[in-house]
């Protein structure tokens, strides 16, 4: 069970996150939604142990993650928003590095990495330098690296970024499968259709504050909207999207 209690974070006294609380358990997929600058990435960094909150605590299986951060990190698989990888390593070498840093045996690394590279159609490119990879290929390597040590908690930050249609479909099925395997999944994304399909619960964030937290169905019912996208728009939209689009077109065609 992943539990965040009253998380707040300020950067040089500018609040990025204010009093955010949630909990999600094994087999659940928690969607984390919000416009740019709403505090999503800050939350992800706190949950993965990369950042300490200004106040509040994160618990995993009832234990404060800061009490044994190294032990907690062993249980977490993380796909960051940006695919920052070492360009001079090959995809397979990167997975070897991650596996070794996590203390996995060579046999296990080779077996798991080999199988997942095959599944994600990366096998022919496994010995190619990452500098020659496309964005989608890098994203697939990140996904494999996050799953390599069979983590209990998975934190996905915009995992579909750059993935082609087939890989995105595989990923969606993968998330459902991992949820059936009783993994706890924290899913941060802008792609609301996917969030609606794969997440059991969602949190909506705006300007660092928690606007809504509940199941997808509850959110739609509460907002009296047919889809998550419509409910989300109603919650966070500060300006009329249609009017904004018209204004942009006017600017483009103006002499």
């Amino acid at each position: 069970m992943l539990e965040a209690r009253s998380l707040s974070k300020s950067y040089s006294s500018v609040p990025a996150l204010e009093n955010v609380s949630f909990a999600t358990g094994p087999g659940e997929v928690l969607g984390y939604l919000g416009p740019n600058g709403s505090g999503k990435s800050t939350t992800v960094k706190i949950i993965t142990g990369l950042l300490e909150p200004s106040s509040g605590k994160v618990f995993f299986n009832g234990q404060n993650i800061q009490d044994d951060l190294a032990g907690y990190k062993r249980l977490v698989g993380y796909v960051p928003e940006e695919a920052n990888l070492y360009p001079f390593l090959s995809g397979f070498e990167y997975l070897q590095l991650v596996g070794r840093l996590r203390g996995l045996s060579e046999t296990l690394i080779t077996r798991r990495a080999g199988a997942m590279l095959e599944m994600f159609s990366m096998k022919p490119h496994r010995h190619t330098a990452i500098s020659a990879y496309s964005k989608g290929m890098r994203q697939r390597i990140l996904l494999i690296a996050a799953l390599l040590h069979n983590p209990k908690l998975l934190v996905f930050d915009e995992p579909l970024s750059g993935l082609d249609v087939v890989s995105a479909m595989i990923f969606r099925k993968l998330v459902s499968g991992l949820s059936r395997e009783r993994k706890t999944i924290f899913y941060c994304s802008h792609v609301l259709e996917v969030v609606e399909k794969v997440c059991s619960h969602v949190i909506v964030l705006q300007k660092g504050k928690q606007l809504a937290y509940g199941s997808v169905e509850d959110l739609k019912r509460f907002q009296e909207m047919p889809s998550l996208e419509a409910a989300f728009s109603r919650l966070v939209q500060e300006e009329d999207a249609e009017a904004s689009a018209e204004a942009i077109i006017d600017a483009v065609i103006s002499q």
Partner: protein
Amino acid sequence: MTPFGHLIFHFLKRMFSGEDEEGVESMSLGLGVVLAFLASPGALASLFLLDKYSTLLQFFRGQRHFDPYRASIADEYFFIVLSMTVTGLVMVLRWNRLFPDRRDFWNLAVLPIPIRQVFLANFTALFLLAVIFAIDVNAVSTVLFPAFVTMSDGSFAAFFRTAGAHAAAVLSASLFSFFAIFALVGILMLVSPPRWFRNISVAARTVLVVALLVEFVSNIFVQLLSGRLPGHAGDYARFLPPFLFLRIYRGVGASVPLTALGASIVIAVAAYSLCYRRHFLRLAESLDTLGAGRHVTRFPSPGWLFRSQWERGCTLFSLKVLLRNERHVLLLGAYLGIGLVMSAGVDLLALPLLIAFFLISGLRFIFDIPATVAANWIFRVAAGVPHPTPRAIARRFLLFAVLPWQIAFPLSWQAVTLDMLFSALGIELVLRGYRKIAFTCNSKPDTSQMVIRVVGLIVTILVLIPVLTGIERWALQSLWRFGTLAFSLGGALWAARGKSDEDEPLVFEDRPAAAFELLKLA
């Protein structure tokens, strides 16, 4: 400003942006700092020459028949070498910017600008940069050096004549360096298969850095210390480019260096014109064939060599950075290039110590320069309780790099033992308080004391190595002396290792201590 002017300005700005092709921020210094740093050797060297050319000091020394023009030839040679080295190093360091890269393609190819104009703007920007640097490096010496040389003459005509000859020699040498390297890149691009170009260019750059530094450092040591031209300008030396450009200063056979300069310009422009379209087309193709090329070389890593998978991961990562990351390969090459010069003519007993010194200090320095720092998050999220500690991993890495050299020379077992103990002690000393994984720490190199560091390094080599060799020679004269020294070194090694630092946290951010601390009273 015209679009072409904007384009030139854009390329000039990119040359100082400190971003590599991956978009990763690398060491970037402001233009002012770079210009001040490059101008200082020429200015300092000029000031040192006052001692040599001062008529008052010559009088006190009793030098009645001092010919300043004859004596100035050796010093002019130094300024020519300095000029060529600086221009050459700037070109080698900006090698990847000699041709527009993938990012330029993304941003400029979609604009209504002919490809020819893009390349011409890039070429012009590089040329301007080379001229600015050449003027900057030689500005002080162009005034001071002729003033000192013509001090005894006392006429303006003599000053302007010498200054003109000096400026012509150093500037044409700089331009030759610029065009020669440009021609080399163009030719390499034309003749090498695309998939091998990167590897070939890294090798060529490393060789060039080593060659330029060897030339420069050997010149400083041989010439400034003895006041003579290297090797009394033997037959072979007369064909070295700096000797050719010395002819311009001497006013004898200036057509030869000018022909060489002309040839380098023609070859550079021809190679550039031939390959620019091909290069740009290749960029477009490379975007469609992502993942198709650049297979990495794999090497075995037997498990028994490592104490844990963690160590295996960190060690192999470090090795790959050293062998594959361009910046690290170049820096290590430069460091070892200086070592190569220093080792020339050194006593056999001192050679293992000198190699150990350069490897230990060089690797320790390079460990602090991060490789793709944005990617170090994986170490942050995967780092559990590291076993062994980063210090133990770095220690073993350095030992593996240094110890094979200790047994490579035909020395007695006592000498080899002492060399190993000295090296191990050196490793312990440079690793005190080390809590980083090599190449993952985001550190800002402290460039403010770079000159002091370089001078410190040279002084250390000139003083420390002879002293240690002397001690070693003393110890090798009898068994009890050897035993005493070995025991003392063993004790010092044990003391230097200190307590275990298992509980020390890993460091991923390393900032030099602030010169001023703000008092947060609010």
